């Protein structure tokens, strides 16, 4: 019974980590656009 729960926890952690990195990347790209595009 523990294994699926472990899997779910691991998936949630991975999802949060990957999506956090993506959000940071997209924010940086957005700042690049915001600062320099006219």
């Amino acid at each position, binding site marked *: 019974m523990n294994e699926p729960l472990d899997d779910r926890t691991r*998936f949630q952690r991975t999802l949060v980590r*990957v999506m956090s990195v*993506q959000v940071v*990347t997209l924010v940086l*790209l*957005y700042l*690049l*656009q915001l*600062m*320099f595009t006219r």
Partner: protein
Amino acid sequence: MHPINWLIVVGWIGYVVVDGVRRARNTRELEGYLLANRSLPWWAVGLSVMATQLSAVTMIGTTGQGATDGMRFVQFYFGLPLAMVILGVTLVPFLHGAKVYTAYEYLERRFDAKTRSLTAFLFLLSRGMSCGTIIAAPAVVFSAIFGWKMSACVALIGVPTVLYTMIGGVQAVTWVDVKQMVLIVGALLAIVITLLVQLPVSPVQALHVAGAVGRLRVFDFTPSLTNTYTFWSGVIGGTFLMLSYFGTDQSQVQRYLSARSVDEARSSLLMSAYWKIPLQALVLLVGVLVFTFYLFTRPPLLFNPAHDKLVRERQPAAYAQLQSRYAAELTARDLAARDLAAAPPDERDRAAQRFQLRQHQTEAMRGEALKLAEDASGQPSRDVNYIIPRFVLDHLPIGLAGIFIAAILAAAMNAIAAELTSLATASTIDFYRRWIRAEASEQHFLAVSRVALGVWGIFACVVATFAANLGSLIEVVNRFGSFFYGSILGVFLLAMYPRARGTGAFVGLIAGMSAVAAVNFGAPKVSFLWHNVIGAVTVLLVGMVLSGGRRATA
């Protein structure tokens, strides 16, 4: 090109072939040849996955797109991280745990032989042709730039790749990919540093100039089905496309099937989730910086030297007149760009408007030149693909130019090697071993795999050599490919639904392809990124309805 540059290129190709062939020692059995005995570490598989997607088209075409269109293409990859995570918990454990050679083999275990054979056949059809175009794209550019015959350029790219792939198998492909990725990323970083050093303005000023004409516009939030690259098509359509590509395309699946364990296979995909968008942004940034470089250094009117020569011969008066107007306009644009770069913040908007006007005029003249080239050659000009190679050969220092050309070749070889191994694997496992000869020795299947790889290699080289004449046929095949990419994903997603059955999957697959074909012909302006969503959802719906309520026994 300088002899030192050639030495670097030839030396690198020689090193890659020797290194790849050396790996043949570990490939005496079928599993060793096709899946590296499922023994590879996650980081090597991860780099190989990334290398496979980074073809010469990326190095030449995407950088060129960065120069002419800016950074917005990066939106295409916005769905990739989420797709990687979803695959990590869905298809990767299924496929890795099933100990299959191909993704399609799993479909027979789950559904039936006809679903497996149809998906494998569709894969062979589209990938067989696309493999030829992957060789042809850089070969056409090399042919125009160096003035070589197309067949010689195809041989330069195709022969070494077929050689090390055929002898060394997946083991060779993966470890060569790792080294080639280091070369490619190193070359991209080196070119960025060189450009920043060579520019007569500071990096921040260069970004202000590029941004003034939209080259740093990344996000387009327009809710449009017809714009190919928007935030929404990237996130939604891109997720489905990446799920299809990484989850069901054998050229990708085979990479992570060779990982040591399910966890290592997942980790290898997560490498792309973390690094693909920054890497793609780097590729596009190279193009943006090359655009900025050519604001201060006079660019040719046509970057393709073959077209330049052709137009000069066919339309000497019109071309000379256009060139003289272009030269005057470039001088004015140079001054406007320098004014903008040096402008204080409160005067930047006005300086940007003057520069935008000059850029607009310059682009209009380039458009006239491209029209002359198209009229003279009778083909689309595709001048964008020549911007980076011309910049590399004309302006990079000796040595670095050789490294960048070697990196373009490396990118081409990586993509081709992955395609060839996957084509050989699907041919051997899904057709030869399934329908022709089920029982034979390991040595026999190993030999068949090597022969299949060689035959696909020759086929790809022949297609590439005649690609210019096969243009419309290739387009038809590529368009046909977009009909079933999402539909195949739908079949794999359906496989995870416990009640789904073979007939539902097979009919669903045909219904999915038909739905995409209907959208394609009925509403041709709908971006191809949405085709994958339509195909996958149709297969799921039809498959679930036809599978009824009874739980499958397979």
